[in-house]
């Protein structure tokens, strides 16, 4: 998406975000568990995970809204509060954060005044598709319009890093589409974008890199294609009493092997090769091959069921 600013070309500049052994506890609950993460300038990254996975807690610490229980957050090598004061980082929050008795244009003007230098109000309103509702009171705007207003406000300091926390929560299909097309146009400018979502399809469609978070830990981190590959495997089940677990696990394309008494479950990316091996080289019988599907992978990785995965399953599973 933003190939012009591939991480390799920016080795000298500090990473946009660096999380070191980052932990956040609320009483006895650990929301974030010793996360290490490095996001380079120009990357578009999705934090994918169910509600309560620790995405918002992490974003709050990156913005300096809350302090880590342990560990460290660096934003462009700086303390988060310093980065915020310099307008290097801004954010689109989930809900709230708007005054109902200001108009759209006044809200943008107000926020713009707070920065040392800000982009012109008209420019950010146009980029967020708000020009036609500029004189409308915020309280009379739709949810989608309010969210695009938050986006316009976030654009004002021309931030190098833009954080979006569940940006399309509660929007209708049209609202989500126009919101993401605005974000996508903006990402082409080379801005680092990190968004939290629990919509698999959003992570897949808009992120170069997907970081899967579950219960405060990173459970997977890779390109969207790699994460999809995690999800596109199949399971071969067979009755095979004397199975050599290690030998099966060593077969090409095998992720892992479960042995339950006489039956084995082999999770793999190339089910044909595994089946051929089992039938020709071993005593295994009663073979069953099932597709794992994106939904199952998401459940396995994040421990929740995704609304969107059902839509994608049809496209991915044969």
């Amino acid at each position, binding site marked *: 998406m933003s190939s*012009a*600013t591939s991480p390799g070309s*920016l080795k000298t*500049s*500090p990473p946009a975000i660096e999380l070191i052994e980052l932990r956040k506890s609320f009483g006895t609950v650990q929301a974030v568990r010793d996360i290490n993460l490095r996001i380079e*300038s120009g990357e578009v990254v999705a934090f994918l995970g169910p509600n309560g996975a620790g995405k918002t807690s992490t974003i709050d610490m990156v*913005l*300096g*809204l*809350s*302090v880590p229980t342990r560990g460290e957050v660096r934003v*462009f*090598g*700086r303390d988060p509060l310093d*980065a*915020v*004061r*310099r*307008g*290097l*980082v*801004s*954010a689109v*929050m989930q*809900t*709230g*954060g*708007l*005054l*109902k*008795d*200001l108009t759209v244009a*006044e809200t943008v*003007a*107000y*926020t713009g*005044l*707070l*920065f*040392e*230098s800000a*982009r012109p109000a008209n*420019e950010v309103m146009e980029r967020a598709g708000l020009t036609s509702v500029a004189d409308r009171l915020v309280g009379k705007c739709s949810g989608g319009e309010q969210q695009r207003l938050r986006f316009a*406000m976030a*654009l004002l*300091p*021309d931030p*190098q890093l833009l954080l979006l926390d569940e940006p399309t929560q509660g929007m209708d299909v049209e609202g989500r589409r126009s919101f993401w097309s605005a974000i996508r146009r*903006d990402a*082409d*400018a*080379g*801005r680092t974008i990190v968004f939290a979502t629990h919509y698999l399809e959003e992570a897949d469609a808009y992120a170069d890199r997907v970081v899967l978070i579950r219960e405060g830990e990173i459970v997977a981190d890779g390109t969207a294609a790699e994460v999809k590959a995690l999800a596109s495997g199949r399971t071969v089940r067979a009755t095979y009493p004397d199975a050599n677990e290690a030998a099966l696990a060593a077969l090409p394309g095998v992720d892992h092997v479960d042995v339950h008494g006489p039956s084995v479950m082999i999770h793999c990316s190339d089910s044909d090769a595994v089946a051929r091996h089992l039938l020709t080289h071993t005593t295994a019988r009663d073979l069953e091959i099932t597709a794992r599907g994106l939904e199952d992978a998401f459940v396995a990785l994040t421990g929740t069921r995704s609304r969107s995965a059902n839509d994608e399953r049809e496209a991915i599973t044969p």
Partner: protein
Amino acid sequence: MSAPFATSLNGDRGFPRWGGFKFAVVRLELRRQLRNRRTVIFTVAFPIFFFLIFGLNKVYASERVGQGNVSAFIMISMALYGAILSTSNGGATVSVERLSGWSRQLRITPLQPGAYIAVKMATSLVLGLVAIVAVYVVAMFTHKPSMPFALWIATGATIWIGSLLFAAYGLFIGYLLPSENVGQLIGFSLMLFSFGGGLFIPLSQFSHPLRVMASYTPLYGLNQLVHYPLVQGSFNWGWLANLVAWLIIFTVGAIWRFRKDTARV
């Protein structure tokens, strides 16, 4: 990178002076608060209305008081009432802002918490001035209040500066209670304070124990002080002590709640 936004990749950006305080922000705050018709009616129209009822009374309005007459005395009382309503309402808007998440939104801008309070104070002071000038101008056109011109300025200025006490009160209550109804509570409490301070009924008409109690309420000292240029006579340092004590209480309270609100956890 051929986008309209030139995203500079070096981080050498400065941050705003005065913690982000700008008069243009105060102007937007004013526009926002004046848009609320109920606020305008309560803080500007009510005190004028009260003056027209009590300040023009044929029986006593022309009686002499110190350097002027009773009508001028009542004009000062009503301007003070309007000013404290305005400044405390201005401060109390923080309550709605906390509820709506606006103060959280401001925390991801360079605006420093102290500058935000300064914006609120400045906005409150302008609203207070509007209320004072409105009462004084309407009163002037009735030709009823009489006192030397210098005292119009002196009493008006004293009211204006003194009304800062209630900007602190509004901030304190606004940070204390996260409620949309905080305005009603402010209105009710100020009504009580006004009786206690002798704004509506002269304290001389109270029974002795009530009068003693009233002398400890937050408007008592300020009300005596703003009338002093007109009434003159002996100066009671207890008025100033009352004002200073309540100023400390409201300011410390506001700072305490404000610290709690902006603390990062």
